[in-house]
């Protein structure tokens, strides 16, 4: 009788362990990517296929909606990970570039009838332009002061948007932004929007992967590691930091444009410090210095926030607590050494079982 209980226990344990081990195969491990392996491997194909096929398999509308949002967050996280994870800087105002992109698209498409495809690229340019302006003086700062300055910029942007109602619709924002369309094909359902956004994201991943394994990628890492060493081999540190900042802003601009074209509205509440914090969390939880981690973290956090929203007014405190816990337990990223931790966990269970056995 006792043996039966133990056997069941063992089977359940095994099931959990196998499930978790499979999960660890799927979750991107920043340490692995960190090892500078840039060849396209089977795992990359697996990710690509699953991204392409999952919405067809799972056709729940809410799921599609969330994945659309997750994709947008993913683009944001990718942009910021170049600046934070590779170049080693910090920005707490990234949501401002998202907002600039969204408003640019909103204004161009609703007031001037610009086709969304054009507005898309213009948004990226506008965001890059502002990043260029703001970056030159700000990037001389380091550490907390850079964080503070970017935060300041984000807040100023928010104030400006709220006050210039003529241009931006003030606190109310802009409505009825047309859906994204190319040559007559309109992306009006969540499914179509999913492929649009994840298509853009995949393209951006290719771009970044190339960038990161080229001399520019090394330049970013060099600047993060030792500015003196980098400049001693001829790297223009200021220009590199600015480049990472501008590219990150361009990505955010693209994300903002897609957001406006998908959600059909743009209003100031979306581009707050909370969003900036969220994007930074995605980069940190994804693990600094890799590309897939922040995307996985974007998916994870988007779903988590949605899951929490059913708790109404408790959602924010719980969210905050979870953030702090994640930071304490996964400062290097959730996927880091996940397999090692799982092995440790499994061995802990094993020891527990053995102890129970002895007692009987």
């Amino acid at each position, binding site marked *: 009788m006792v043996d039966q209980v133990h056997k069941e226990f063992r089977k359940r344990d095994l099931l959990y362990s196998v499930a978790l081990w499979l999960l660890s195969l799927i979750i991107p491990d920043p340490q692995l990517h960190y090892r*500078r392996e840039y060849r396209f491997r089977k795992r990359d194909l697996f990710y690509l296929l699953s991204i392409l096929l999952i919405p067809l398999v799972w056709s729940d509308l809410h799921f599609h909606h969330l994945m659309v949002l997750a994709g947008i967050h993913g683009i944001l996280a990718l942009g910021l990970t170049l600046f934070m994870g590779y170049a080693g800087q910090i920005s707490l105002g990234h949501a401002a570039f998202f907002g600039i992109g969204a408003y640019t698209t909103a204004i161009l498409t609703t007031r001037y009838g610009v086709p969304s495809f054009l507005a898309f690229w213009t948004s990226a340019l506008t965001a890059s332009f502002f990043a260029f302006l703001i970056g030159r003086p700000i990037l001389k700062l380091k550490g907390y002061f850079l964080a503070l300055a970017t935060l300041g910029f984000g807040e100023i942007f928010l104030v400006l948007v709220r006050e210039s109602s003529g241009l931006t619709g003030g606190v109310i924002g802009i409505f009825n932004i047309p859906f994204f369309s190319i040559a007559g094909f309109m992306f009006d359902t969540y499914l179509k929007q999913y492929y649009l956004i994840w298509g853009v994201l995949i393209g951006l991943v290719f*771009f*970044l992967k*190339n*960038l990161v*394994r*080229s*001399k*520019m*990628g*090394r*330049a970013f*890492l*060099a600047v*993060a*590691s*030792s500015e*003196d*060493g*980098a*400049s*001693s*081999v*001829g*790297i*223009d*540190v200021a220009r590199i930091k600015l*480049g990472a900042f501008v*590219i990150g802003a361009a990505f955010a601009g693209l994300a903002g444009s897609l957001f406006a074209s998908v959600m059909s509205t743009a209003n100031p509440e979306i581009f707050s410090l909370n969003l900036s914090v969220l994007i930074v969390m995605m980069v940190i939880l994804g693990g600094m*210095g890799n590309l897939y981690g922040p995307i996985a973290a974007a998916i994870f956090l988007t779903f988590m926030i949605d899951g929490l929203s059913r708790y109404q007014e408790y959602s924010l405190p719980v969210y905050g607590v979870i953030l702090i816990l994640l930071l304490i337990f996964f400062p290097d990223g959730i996927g880091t050494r996940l397999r090692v931790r799982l092995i440790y966990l499994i061995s802990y269970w094993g020891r527990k079982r053995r102890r129970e056995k002895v007692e009987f």
Partner: protein
Amino acid sequence: MFLLLEEIVKNYDGLRALNRVSLQVRKGTVKGLMGPNGAGKTTLFHLISGMERPDSGRIQFKGKEITGLRTHEIARIGVGRTFQTIQIFGNMTVVENVLTGMHLRIKGGLLSSGFYPPWIKRGEEEAMKEAKEILELFGLFGRWKWFASQLSYGEQKRLEMARALSARPELLLLDEPAAGLTYPEAKQVAETLSRLKETGLTLFLIEHHMGMVMEIADEVAVLNNGQLIAEGPPDVVKRDPRVIEAYLLKK
């Protein structure tokens, strides 16, 4: 005159770190820079490599004025440098450190690299080959895939030198290349430096290791309290009473 410093003055918050220092380095020679700790040697290197600006005085390299230029511009002109506190890139692999050294010689801009056209791909492959050859010269080839932070202290110093060389500088500033090394490691460094000199590279090094300086330097300059107190061939300078006094007093 290959490297020329004229009347260099540098103050830090009221403390005069360098007081009207003038010296020259001839092309193709090895010059030593010595002096007790705090004499201003590293400060001088900072000024030459552009990390600081002198308060007055001029620096010329290959006949061109480089005073006030920024570090990466000076690197582009052909001045390389290693640091007293090793400044390798611990977040990259060994080979990537050397590849970064070749930054100026590899093709590609921010946007073009993102698209990785075939000409960039070829450039990267060639660079990788060359980088591995450089690592071979420094005995680091076996560890090319390791992360730079995983190397031992001596290996890291070698890596920093390899990286500085991969930029193909004409003048190399070495800040205490033998510091913290064991006797055989230091001997290896001295040999490497002699070989480099034979290839025509001009070396300017800060070093406390009397023996090493005697062996490889053609000329030595000695600083004390921000002032140049002696300059000339090593065995002459070694016997200069002011030099002896400076070292004895500080020690």
